[in-house]
């Protein structure tokens, strides 16, 4: 037999191997394994495994303070939902557990340098920043010291006021545009009020609302529930767009932006003609009201005069009614004169201090009684170029704010330092940022915003460990005080201790009650609140007679000359996106991956306006205002009032974690003029 191996042999051998292997399990098992292997790639994330627990806390992302039940795996929250019987969480609350891992999260203090419209960050030790702030505070001639507090009312807010107490001209500036901030203008009528002015929405049976988003979080979810139940709450909503509140209202009055003051005075005029008692309360402005008739006001606002008479009639028919100015989520407050006009309606109707009207509520007890505190001062009342040291406290969240409104108040070589968990939003404007814990990483207080008559306080319990490199805001206040040689009141060194001091004070005062828990001692009170119980009070009523002064009358007279602007730009954002500098990346579902919400930087106009200004949908256009210019993409929609540009403000790709470029400016920056807010700004638009 031949013994050399031929090619034929190899092929035959191969054939044998092939047939033989078919008769073994090998190929079948390998096929099966291959299928499994291709379905379990290593780079596909695997959900966590671990012990499942359920933890209670309170959402501190916005002042509503919804009770939260967190489903956790291995101690890390994987699902946030409303605690039993509570209001369902909004999209922001539902995804809040993502924020700690947001790509824009800061894990170390940084210095921010602006270059080409973008921010470049370099890590610096916190001690260096603290020393810089303390030195700047001590040095004279630089300017006054101010703290911009986005969540006033916390224990940390008190600590800032205590820190600034010894410095002349220093003040804490509350967030300029948050819900209920318009009521702060009541101070004009009663400068010595001890507490906060708030609308008693829960007990009102009729509301004349100027843009207040009552169905989107004002008054907690209760006002919304009342509107949807049809249980007799009458609402007249004065707003340029058909918002969800306007859609639920008894009547929607589409008044032109900027004409709200005229509408308010038109209603006052109708009231004064109808009721002599009311006329006697507005003697100072009677001549003005005789000229600014409902018909004249309707003409300025572009609405039928019947609407104004209907609003006046509603206020007359319902003894428990009120007129309330509403802050829009991106636009903030009305200008001071408009706020004055709207609040005057309550004054002439005699609704101040009455049930269902505008009442005061006592401020929350301070952690330490009788401490020396710096005053609160509105941003508008701060003189331009006066602030030498600005500390922006965004540690518990922030609202949209056109930075130029703040920058205007800074002196030439001012030092701005921000406390923020993220390198986004206001922190990119500051020169230094101290990194603080993100939502769910630290204990927070949630005091009620000024849109509800009952004072309330909840405590948000942390569910995650804070990152190394995040500083507790209260301890930062301590560090600055130590470095600046300032002595602070009380024995505390952390937010937790401040909260303990405050709950002890609340317990000592005996005021209010605990919702959802029992408490005999201060410790029990604090523990119950940590488990989600809310401390709350009842509204206090005692009617106060107020009147309109001559000086107010002079200011109100300027409304008569309200000019009809050719074109105005009105900023817009969604309620749930307005409370944080960054959003969970899942918000792309609402903005990018569907047509539900527009992304930031879109200018939406009515088709008639588009034709007039020769704008085509999808094209880029330049919007010019006194503040500057911005390029936006044009879209056309019948939902927008003619001669109005709705400019969407966010979220930016950075806020969604989709971009590494830390672009500093925001389309909102183009809004605003000196002293009148940024709610509606005269503008010009042309195709780019």
């Amino acid at each position, binding site marked *: 037999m031949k013994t050399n191996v031929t090619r034929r042999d190899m092929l035959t051998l191969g054939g044998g191997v092939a047939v033989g292997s078919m008769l073994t399990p090998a190929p079948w098992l390998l096929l099966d394994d291959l299928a499994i292997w291709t379905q379990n*790639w290593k*780079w*596909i*994330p*695997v*959900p*966590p495994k671990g012990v*499942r627990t359920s933890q209670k806390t309170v959402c501190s992302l916005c002042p509503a303070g919804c009770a939260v039940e967190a489903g956790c795996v*291995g101690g*890390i*929250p*994987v*699902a946030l*939902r409303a605690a039993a019987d509570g*209001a*369902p*969480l*909004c*999209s922001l609350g*539902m*995804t809040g*557990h*993502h924020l*700690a*891992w*947001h*790509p824009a999260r800061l894990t170390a203090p940084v210095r921010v340098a602006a270059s080409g419209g973008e921010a470049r960050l370099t890590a610096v030790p916190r001690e260096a920043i603290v020393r810089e702030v303390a030195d700047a505070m001590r040095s004279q001639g630089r300017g006054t010291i101010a703290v911009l507090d986005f969540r006033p009312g916390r224990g940390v807010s008190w600590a800032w006021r205590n820190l600034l107490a010894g410095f002349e001209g220093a003040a804490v500036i509350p967030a300029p545009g948050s819900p209920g901030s318009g009521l702060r203008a009541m101070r004009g009528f009663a400068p010595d009020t001890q507490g906060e002015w708030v609308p008693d929405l829960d007990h009102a049976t009729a509301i004349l609302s100027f843009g207040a988003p009552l*169905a989107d979080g004002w008054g907690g*979810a209760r006002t*919304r529930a009342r509107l*949807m139940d049809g249980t007799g709450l009458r609402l007249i909503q004065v707003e340029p767009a*058909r918002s*969800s509140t306007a*859609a639920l209202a008894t009547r*929607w009055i*589409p008044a032109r932006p900027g004409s709200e003051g005229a509408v308010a005075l038109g209603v006052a005029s109708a009231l004064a003609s109808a009721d002599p008692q009311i006329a006697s309360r507005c003697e100072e402005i009677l001549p003005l009201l005789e000229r600014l008739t409902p018909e004249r006001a309707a003409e300025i606002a572009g609405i039928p005069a019947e609407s104004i008479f209907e609003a006046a009639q509603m206020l007359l028919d319902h003894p428990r009614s009120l007129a309330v100015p509403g802050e829009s989520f991106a636009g903030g407050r009305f200008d001071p004169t408009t706020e004055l006009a709207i609040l005057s309606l309550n004054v002439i109707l005699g609704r101040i201090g009455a049930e269902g009207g505008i009442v005061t509520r006592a401020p929350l007890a301070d952690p330490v009684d009788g401490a020396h505190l710096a005053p609160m001062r509105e941003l508008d009342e701060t003189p331009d170029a006066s602030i030498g040291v600005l500390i922006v406290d965004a540690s518990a969240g922030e609202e949209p704010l056109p930075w130029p409104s703040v920058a205007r108040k800074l002196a030439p070589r001012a030092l701005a330092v921000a406390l923020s968990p993220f390198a986004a939003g206001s922190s990119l404007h500051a020169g230094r940022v101290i990194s603080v814990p993100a939502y769910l990483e630290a204990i927070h207080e949630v005091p009620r915003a000024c849109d509800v008559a009952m004072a309330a306080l909840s405590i948000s319990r942390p569910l995650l460990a804070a990152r190394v490199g995040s500083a507790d805001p209260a301890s930062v206040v301590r560090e600055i005080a130590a470095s600046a040689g300032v002595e602070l009141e009380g024995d505390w060194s952390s937010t937790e201790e401040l909260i303990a001091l405050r709950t002890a004070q609340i317990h000592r005062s005996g005021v209010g009650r605990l919702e959802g828990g029992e408490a005999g001692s201060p410790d029990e009170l604090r523990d119950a609140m940590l488990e989600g119980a809310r401390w709350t009070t009842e509204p206090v009523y005692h009617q106060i007679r107020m009147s309109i002064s001559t000086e107010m009358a002079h200011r109100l007279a300027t409304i008569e000359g309200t000019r009809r602007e050719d074109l105005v730009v009105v900023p817009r954002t969604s*309620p*749930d996106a307005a409370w944080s500098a960054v959003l969970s*990346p*899942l*918000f*792309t*579902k*609402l903005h*990018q*991956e*569907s*047509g*539900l*919400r527009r992304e930031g930087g879109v200018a939406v106009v*009515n*088709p008639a306006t588009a034709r007039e200004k020769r704008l085509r949908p999808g094209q880029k256009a330049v919007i010019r205002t006194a503040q500057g210019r911005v390029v936006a993409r044009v879209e056309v929609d*019948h*939902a927008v*009032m*003619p001669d109005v540009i709705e400019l969407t403000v966010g979220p930016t790709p950075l806020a*969604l*974690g*989709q*971009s590494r470029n830390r672009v500093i400016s925001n389309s909102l920056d183009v809004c605003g003029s000196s002293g009148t807010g940024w709610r509606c700004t005269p503008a010009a638009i042309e195709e780019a």
Partner: protein
Amino acid sequence: MVGEERVARYGMVIDLDRCNGCGACMTACAVENNIPPAQPRVNERTGLTSMRVHRASNHRGFPDHEEVFIPISCQHCGEHTPCMSVCPQNAVDVNPLTGVVSQIPARCLGCRYCMAACPVHARYFNWFDPEWPEGMERTLNPDVSVRMRGVVEKCNFCHSRYQAAKAKAAAAGSREIDPADYVPACVEACPSGAIVFGDLSDPESDVALAAKSSDAFRLLESLGTDPKVYYLSEREWVRRLGGADVTRDSLEVHRG
């Protein structure tokens, strides 16, 4: 032997007069089902939203312009289920005990024939591998698997919650779940209570009663697919949208 289990037909009724387009249902769906956030170049056509709120309007000018928001997820068609009949892989089936139309991504080969067949565009393709920012994978829901790219997915009425409800009932020795234990994420999240969920074959359930209302309509009912999602509205122009073309993000009534 196994006892006979009650046959249920799970369905939804969505009140369009209550929906204000807040999108909480969309967010809740994404959180519950481990849907990854979008890559930068994704748009409406390539987005992945198992629940998507569409918009439609009455086409009038300002100020008479009115919008309606319509949350659309898989309608769980019961009759001649279009996606099931075209799938070459048998990756879609109708559960005989619940009526839920399933989509098993592990079996799907990504031909997207079902996406073409679905009359309401309720099926979505994973164009990209799922990617979360570093560390955020620790917040994923362990009851739902994460899909790789190249497969189709859609709403399955939060079946993981149904499975949990069944396990809980089984631990107590029962074959019937407690309806309060089975609430899909979108239903739980809606702040207006616009979405009602339950067993359509139970004549006393909220959902069965609402579905019989004269204000109720279904999308593209004329196709005869017997969808299990009903919509309610007192407005005539909204009810007429039942015959409209469903596009990627809106409903357009076919003119002519």
